[in-house]
């Protein structure tokens, strides 16, 4: 009987990794079928957000701590690597490492006071700390304040992540990023930590009764989530070639990072990817098709979509694909 139990969970995890590999191959070949440069750029952005949302999901989804300050970790990553490259000539390959460590450390530090708060107090505190840093950054001359920093282009180089036309190389960079964060989430799901975090999210008192320390669990989840978000910030900076507080630290970015996970299905392996695949194209395409002709309609479409999806699919888009979740929805309905 224990063997049967082992079967189902182990088989599910094996299926997931096989599906993940299949999707990875598909996405790796995708540029061959998509010649249009605009669409390719759209895919790059979608992959970036798939990774970012999965990074957010580690803390928000698995551990249940709704952070609206993840732009902070993104921004720290982006600024760290950009400054290292432009001021000291250090390769982004190291910048990625440094950005990840610093943003993970920042998430840990933010967690120290914030995880003493509960519920909405926690949400607001993350939001405020994020905004505070954004405001300070916009007034800090050392990092060019609100003017931002441009990464000058010298020559094609993989070690500098510099390309004359960045879209195709960055397709693979972002794909590697999204795949890596997905793999981390998959590993977490099957690990001791992952089980503890989900327990913390579902019921704190019950988790304690099983010997799980709540505070360290949250801090660990925050550090990993922050580091994963920071690496995304590093890649974004080198992809776009320009960063400023508005594009890397603002509250709206924190929401953008969280939304694909929420819409796709929080605390699930496929939710962030699915959410990004729906939200990012809709957002970008509505800007492209409508934005210039009638400012604001793109936001209206986006806002309406978020409301509709959140209300129609509170358990996330993944529930369309899960027989089990569908049954449950029927039960609840």
């Amino acid at each position, binding site marked *: 009987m224990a063997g049967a139990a082992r079967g189902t969970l182990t088989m599910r995890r094996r299926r997931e990794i096989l599906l993940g590999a299949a999707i990875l191959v598909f996405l790796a070949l995708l540029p061959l079928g998509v010649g249009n440069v605009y669409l390719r750029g759209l895919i790059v952005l979608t992959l970036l957000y798939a990774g970012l949302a999965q990074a957010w999901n580690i803390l928000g989804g698995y551990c249940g701590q709704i952070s609206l300050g993840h732009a902070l970790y993104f921004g720290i990553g982006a600024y760290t690597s950009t400054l290292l490259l432009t001021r000291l000539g250090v390769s982004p390959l190291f910048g990625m490492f440094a950005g990840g460590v610093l943003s993970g450390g920042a998430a840990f530090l933010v967690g120290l006071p914030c995880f003493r708060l509960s519920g909405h107090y926690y949400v607001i505190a993350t939001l405020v700390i994020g905004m505070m840093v954004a*405001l300070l950054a916009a007034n800090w001359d050392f990092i060019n304040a609100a003017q931002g920093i441009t990464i000058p282009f010298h020559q094609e180089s993989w070690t500098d992540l510099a390309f004359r036309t960045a879209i195709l190389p960055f397709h693979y960079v972002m794909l590697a990023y999204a795949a890596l964060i997905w793999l981390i989430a998959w590993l977490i799901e099957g690990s001791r930590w992952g089980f503890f975090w989900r327990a913390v999210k579902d019921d704190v008192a019950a988790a304690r009764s099983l010997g799980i320390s709540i505070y360290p669990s949250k801090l660990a989840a925050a550090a990993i989530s922050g580091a994963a978000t920071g690496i995304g910030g590093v890649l974004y900076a080198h992809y776009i070639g320009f960063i400023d507080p508005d594009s890397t630290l603002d509250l709206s970015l924190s929401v953008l990072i969280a939304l694909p996970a929420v819409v796709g299905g929080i605390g699930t392996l496929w939710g962030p990817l699915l959410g990004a695949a729906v939200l990012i194209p809709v957002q970008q395409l509505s800007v492209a098709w409508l934005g210039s002709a009638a400012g*604001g309609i793109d936001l209206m479409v986006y806002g*309406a*979509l978020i*409301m509709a999806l*959140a*209300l129609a699919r*509170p358990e996330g888009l993944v529930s369309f694909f899960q027989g089990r979740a569908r049954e449950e929805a029927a039960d*609840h309905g």
Partner: protein
Amino acid sequence: MSATLIAQVAIGGLLMGLVYAVVAAGLSLIFGLMDVVNFAHGALLMVAMYATLLIHRATGIDPLLQLPLVAALLFGAGVAIYRGLIARTLSVRVNAGMVQIFVTFGLSIFLVGAAEFLFGSDFQSINTSLLGGHSLAFGAIVLPLPLVASGIVALFVFLGLALLSRTEFGQALEATREDHEAVALIGIDRDRVFGIGWGIGTASVGIAGVMLANFYYIAPDVGTNFALIAYVTVALGGFGSIFGALVAGLMIGLVEALTALFIDPALKQIGIFMIYLAVLMIRPRGLFGQI
């Protein structure tokens, strides 16, 4: 730096703090009633400001005289938002808290987009009004009249909210916030109380919007900043506490004005955020929070 200047800035800050407090009170009332944080609160402030501007342009009615009209409009909007969106989230079994956060975020994005579409993103303002351009002098201290008037109106809003708790509806509201399920047994229609609660909370922000329209620029994203301050105010005062919102609002207005004076106007919000974080470290549920 003269004492007069400091006094003038401090009083100005307190008056602005009263406006912050009214915005926060609306948020806090809704939260206390049903545990929902409305992330579209700032967008509703913006809606009230544009409503004031449009009515002023179309009819010439002075913003001050529009108070009841816009408050009624926003009351209706609040009830509609409850009926159309929030009531649906209450029946959600999974992720209800998250759904509420992001539904109201979606609404906020939608409203800001609609304002941008309809009115463009340029700053606009009401140039001619009863209050505009005047100021009051108390000895050497000079205060702009619209700001003084806003402070007085804000005090009336708080008086109204305090009186509300003595009415029959106020008691139904209190009973509902204490126990959502049990009130049905004593004949209170929970849905109706929630709807009216949203109406009152939104009407409060509407009144703040009208008063701000007298002297503040109007743009699609004008609410973002006020909303941010409102969240801080509510968390500082304690979620659900109207009195906490008043005290915290005054504190924040004062700290903001003094930070701008003594440190740097560009960093005025840093002062607010520092105070907020400091208080939260000592009192994780804010100054007057019970929930």
